[in-house]
């Protein structure tokens, strides 16, 4: 029975690679949108901001099955988006890597946006006003004042997305099927192994995934506590409270 085990090993690497690829592309692909949304929510005074935030929070509270259902509806063969994609690439959007990537972007939106929003909101508004008073345009203020003060939050958003995507299961299963080499991520492979009664394999992979996720989160919390920026921000904020 040695040979079937070898097949499984190959699939382990493939699945791990798929999980990593999905995690990276989710974190990086979501960054521009998350930057825009996070900054907008942090600084906007508009009334409908609350609705925006609530909508963004949905993936946090919705069961993955609900999200999966709507995604199947929205990305499936009969949908508008699915149709366009099929016309361009000849493949279906669901049950493909591109499909689960899209689903992953939607599912991770709150995880990407919230740390960024917090990071920007932590910048005292006087500092941004001072930037305007110094003649900086919006873009210059973002690049030279906001970004240096917010980047640990942005990085932790990336890490959070990354770690969270590694653990995604329900949505990937529903939208991706469980196709090895295409949509069978590591979490799905573990599930498969348990069903195939390969508990040893499942154990090994689960432990690996646990350690990996833990390390990512540890890196993230170290970043959040990055002394220089944290201290400067709290000092700046204190200045506001004192007077």
């Amino acid at each position, binding site marked *: 029975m040695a040979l079937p085990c070898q097949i499984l090993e190959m699939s382990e690497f493939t699945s791990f690679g798929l999980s990593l690829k999905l995690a990276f592309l989710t974190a990086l692909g979501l960054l521009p949108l998350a930057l825009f949304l996070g900054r907008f929510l942090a600084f906007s005074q508009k009334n409908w901001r609350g609705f925006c935030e609530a909508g963004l929070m949905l993936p946090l509270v919705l069961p993955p099955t609900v999200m999966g259902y709507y995604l199947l509806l929205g990305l499936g063969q009969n949908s508008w988006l699915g149709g366009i994609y099929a016309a361009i690439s000849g493949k279906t959007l669901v049950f493909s890597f591109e499909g689960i990537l899209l689903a992953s972007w939607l599912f991770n939106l709150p995880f990407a946006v919230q740390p960024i929003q917090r990071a920007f909101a932590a910048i005292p508004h006087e*500092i941004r006003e001072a930037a305007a*008073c*110094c003649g*900086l345009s919006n873009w210059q203020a973002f690049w030279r004042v906001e970004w240096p003060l917010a980047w640990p939050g942005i990085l932790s958003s990336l890490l959070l997305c990354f770690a969270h995507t590694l653990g995604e299961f329900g949505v990937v299963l529903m939208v991706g099927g469980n196709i090895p080499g295409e949509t069978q991520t590591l979490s799905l492979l573990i599930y498969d192994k348990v069903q195939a009664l390969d508990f040893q394999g499942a154990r090994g992979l689960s432990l690996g995934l646990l350690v990996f996720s833990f390390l990512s989160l540890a890196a993230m919390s170290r970043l959040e506590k990055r002394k220089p920026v944290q201290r*400067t921000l709290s000092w700046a904020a204190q200045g506001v409270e*004192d007077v």
Partner: protein
Amino acid sequence: MSEGLYFQVEQTRPVPLDLSLHLPAGQLMILAGPSGAGKTSLLRLLMGLDKPAQGLLRLNHKVYFNAQTQIFVPPQARSVGLVFQNYALFPHLSALENIKLALLEQPNPAREKLAWEWLEKVRLTHRAHARPQTLSGGEQQRLALARALARQPELLLLDEPFAAMDTPLRRELYLELAQLRDEYPLSILLVTHELQEALQVADQLVLLQAGRILQEGPPQVLRKAPANAEVARLLGIENFWPAERISDKHVVWAEGEIELSSYAEASRGAGWLMGAPEDLVISTEPDSSRGQVWPARVEQALRLGQRWHLRLKLAKGTPVIASVPFAVSTGAQIWVYFPPQVLQWVPESQRKRSHRSIL
């Protein structure tokens, strides 16, 4: 000749404001008033951080805001510098870089040179590479000043610069501001609730309350002739009694008739009487040789340094504050003499609200 600043505003939210200001170029104006009067809101409107509902803002003939023609110039494009109450220095940049950031329009070599010049001017060259968190309060303020002036604005705004400062630092600041005003074609508008220092350095004083101007003018004029009791209170004038002028030399107040030195244009009618506490003559024996004396009871006697600060009540209940260089005990019966030459008359005909007309 530059026009200076002309600003007229009317709004109800977020803070009610209804006033118009004119600050000639090269002058230092102090905007004072109790908290909630709208002083900081006004600064924000001048800087362009907020937009009023109605109004007009012009600086040296440049229109920065006109509600009617829908003109609004953002802060970046205004020739205005603002020193925030808590300085709002960029915490991730050194002192030098803070100033350089305000000079982005210049090419890099010029930027560096100008920034160093400003550092020299505010005597911070030895702290050029320090972060704002490591600077003392006074140094932070000087840095904020340099940053606000780096772009050579025509109007400088300061929000409560004297707050949390000790006297030597305040002195330093007055001198610096006076120097700046003389050196550059700069108008300075300063907001504070610490009036005593303000009076020393201002060309114009504007008293604000609930979004309206109570009185404006050179500080000495205000001190001599406050428009009404509120102004007097804000200016710290302690003795301010309602009275009625019946003749050139005589005024009737709550306690009866009292004599004044005549004023050239003394108008009849209602008004107020003022007299500085140190100028009133207090004696423990009734002595009418100089003039009418009034009996009073000492409600409170506090020793402040070498003098005693007295709170007196006259026969009809009029409160009087006096300051004497000898000890007086609480509850004692004393006599007050009001020398006519120290009494000042402020007629009520001066309106409570004063709006300067457009020049």
